[in-house]
């Protein structure tokens, strides 16, 4: 129960969790603590750390805290509205991808995905027999003419003002028509009822209601990390990629960044002949690709995109 918890190797998440508790405390807690102190509740003996308004960590008995965290305060985010004034866009530079798999693992970590599920797929592509193979990571393309949104019978998947295709897992009936309609196989399904998030995980995901909480029998997919974009941060896949494959940004501002460099979107697409996958389907994806020319890495086939290879990349530096 002490603060030296070595098991948590994710400081960012830990930080978020503390921030979460702190926010809760500031918003509602202290008033409650005061009122709770006046009431005579039996002490439990369990101490809980809270952040006071003047920045001090205080320890109070758990009986003094009203355990009900008002969800309404935390999830003000309307699942059907986007970030105002933004048009999110992604550019994926295929010349830099070596199938390190970091985007995938970071994504799965951020979204608490079970082992057999992934929002990003890293596909081995070969356009023709003579053409060289290359790796192509595919998140959801957040199309501007989304076939999945068109076919949904209950409006459980929809287009947000910021360009993101969102899913309401409390609305979804699990007919899987959207999965069949998506030409890019971007959508995944919660096939089993067993995989469920624990309370901590739920509380971390809940403030950002656009992130799926893995409701069984419903569809989910890449959401461009609304948790991050709301804070003007890059999605986790973009941050995690060791090779700067992913650029993410705002079409309105005409700016994208891969974390290392920030460039003009229009200039990048112009200079490197950006294109969209299967343009002739008319789905108007919001994800652009830069062709795999002047490769940074030779193509190395991997039977299994292993963790080991990902680690080699990491150790050899970049």
């Amino acid at each position, binding site marked *: 129960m002490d603060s030296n918890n070595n098991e948590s190797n994710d400081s960012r998440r830990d930080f978020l969790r503390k921030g979460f508790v702190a926010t809760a405390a500031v918003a509602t807690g202290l008033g409650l603590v005061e009122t709770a102190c006046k009431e005579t509740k039996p002490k439990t003996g369990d101490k809980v750390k809270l952040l006071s308004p003047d920045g001090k960590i205080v320890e109070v008995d758990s009986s003094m805290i009203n355990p009900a965290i008002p969800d309404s305060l935390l999830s003000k985010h309307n699942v059907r509205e986007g970030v105002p004034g933004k048009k999110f866009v992604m550019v994926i530079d295929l010349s830099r991808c070596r199938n390190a798999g970091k985007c995938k693992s970071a994504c799965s970590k951020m979204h608490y995905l079970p082992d057999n599920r992934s929002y990003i*797929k890293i596909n081995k592509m070969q356009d023709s027999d003579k053409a060289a193979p290359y790796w192509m990571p595919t998140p959801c393309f957040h199309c501007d003419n989304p076939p999945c949104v068109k076919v949904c*019978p209950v409006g459980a998947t929809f287009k947000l003002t910021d360009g993101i295709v969102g899913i309401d897992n409390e609305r979804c009936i699990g007919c899987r028509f959207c999965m069949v309609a998506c030409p890019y*196989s971007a959508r995944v399904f919660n096939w089993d009822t067993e995989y469920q998030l624990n309370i901590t995980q739920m509380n971390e995901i809940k403030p950002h209601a656009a992130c799926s909480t893995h409701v069984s029998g419903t569809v989910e997919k890449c959401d461009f990390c609304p948790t991050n974009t709301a804070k003007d941060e890059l999605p986790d896949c973009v941050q995690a990629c060791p090779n700067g494959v992913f650029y993410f940004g705002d079409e309105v501002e005409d700016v994208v960044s891969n974390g290392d460099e920030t460039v003009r979107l229009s200039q990048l697409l112009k200079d490197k002949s950006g294109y969209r996958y299967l343009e002739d389907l008319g789905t108007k994806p919001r994800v652009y690709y830069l062709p795999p020319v002047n490769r940074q890495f030779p193509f190395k086939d991997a039977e299994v995109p292993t963790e080991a290879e990902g680690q080699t990349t990491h150790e050899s530096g970049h």
Partner: protein
Amino acid sequence: MEPVKIKLDKSNQLLTDLMPKKFNASGKLWVGVLLVIVVIGFYAYIRQLQKGLVVTDMRDFTSWGIYISNFVFFVAISLVGSLVSAILKLANVRWRTPLVRISEIIAVAAIFFAAIIIIVDMGRPERFWHLFAFGRLQSPILWDVIVITTYLVVSSLLLYIPLLPDIAICRDLTPASLKFKKWFYTFLALNWRGTSQQYALIHKCINVLAVLVVPLALGIHTVTSWLFATTYRAGWDSSNFGPYFVAGAFQAGCGGVIAVTYVLRNHYNLKKYITTKHFDNMAKLLVLLSLVYLYFNINEYLVPGYKMKTVDGEHLKSLFTGHYAPLFWSVQIFGMVVPIVVMLFKKGRAPLPVFIVSLLVVVGAWFKRFLIVVPTLLHPFIPIQNVPASWHTYMPTWEEWAITSASLAGALLVITFFVRLFPIISIWEMTEEQQSPQIDEQTNLYEAQA
């Protein structure tokens, strides 16, 4: 119009032959077997509700499996109702009379279980009401919900309204001592008295419904085909899909009604009413419908097969020479070519061969729906990779087979209990037929048989 006079005594041979009869030993065995299948299916469904759709072999790529193909099959079979009771009626085909009720109960049972199986396929069946609360008219699923519900209602009316005079016969022949049975028939007969006014009304109703049901029937098959054709998938992205599905449905439905008719004819000894001429005629009809379906199949496979566009080509290769080739060619040959060839010959149109061929057509139709739904999903634009090996194929689990079999058994049970409770050949319409002076020689099958 003069009302039909039906004698309610033992001298009326029609009553002795056509009134519903108690199950004999084989009937009881049949019901018992079907009930066991339904119970196993229920158990499998409870497991699916508890564990989720993970008990099926459907995964992110094959996200639709035999539930959906079974749904398409049920929708297809249900077309037979409108074929016999509407299209043949509007074409003034008189020999259809003893087949009308059989085909209409098949239609109602099939479309009812189509609706049930679609709920079975849902990840969140308890949210079914979302379709009504949040329904979006832009989605082909909603079109399907609307048109299937309407078809279910109209088909039920087409079954029920012509049944009224016969329910009244059952009511009048049931002794007052059997209280529940008497009440049941009295309730359902809606105070039918057999006046000329009532008969005029019933004829008018049937005519209106027969006209109404034709566009509806074409509608449900076309809309069901659009569930597939409105996507970009190889093998589904086809403007040919509507008529292709309608043609397939006519063929499957015709096979279905022949098979059921044959069983009922033998079991209840209805040879006097359902004659060899009926089988001959239905066989000719089935040949015609199979030829039309063959035509659409050639369209559907030859044209993309000629071009062999990348993903289309992979999909077609898996059907023509690949993993699904044995099933594909069996279905095309035994479900379509063999029936055409066999029934071109007069001997092939005798009741038994027609029955066997019809079974081939129906079984072929079921697997054909599987071949329409599943192989396409295994050939997405971005090839399936980096997933467990089992995700590259689809082989239904026992739960899926059990639930699917239960739905088929359920439909057969509905038909069986219907036959137990009501005359499966319309007594009043047969009487009308016999009393009618204007039976021309060509259609007077009953005399020919005698």
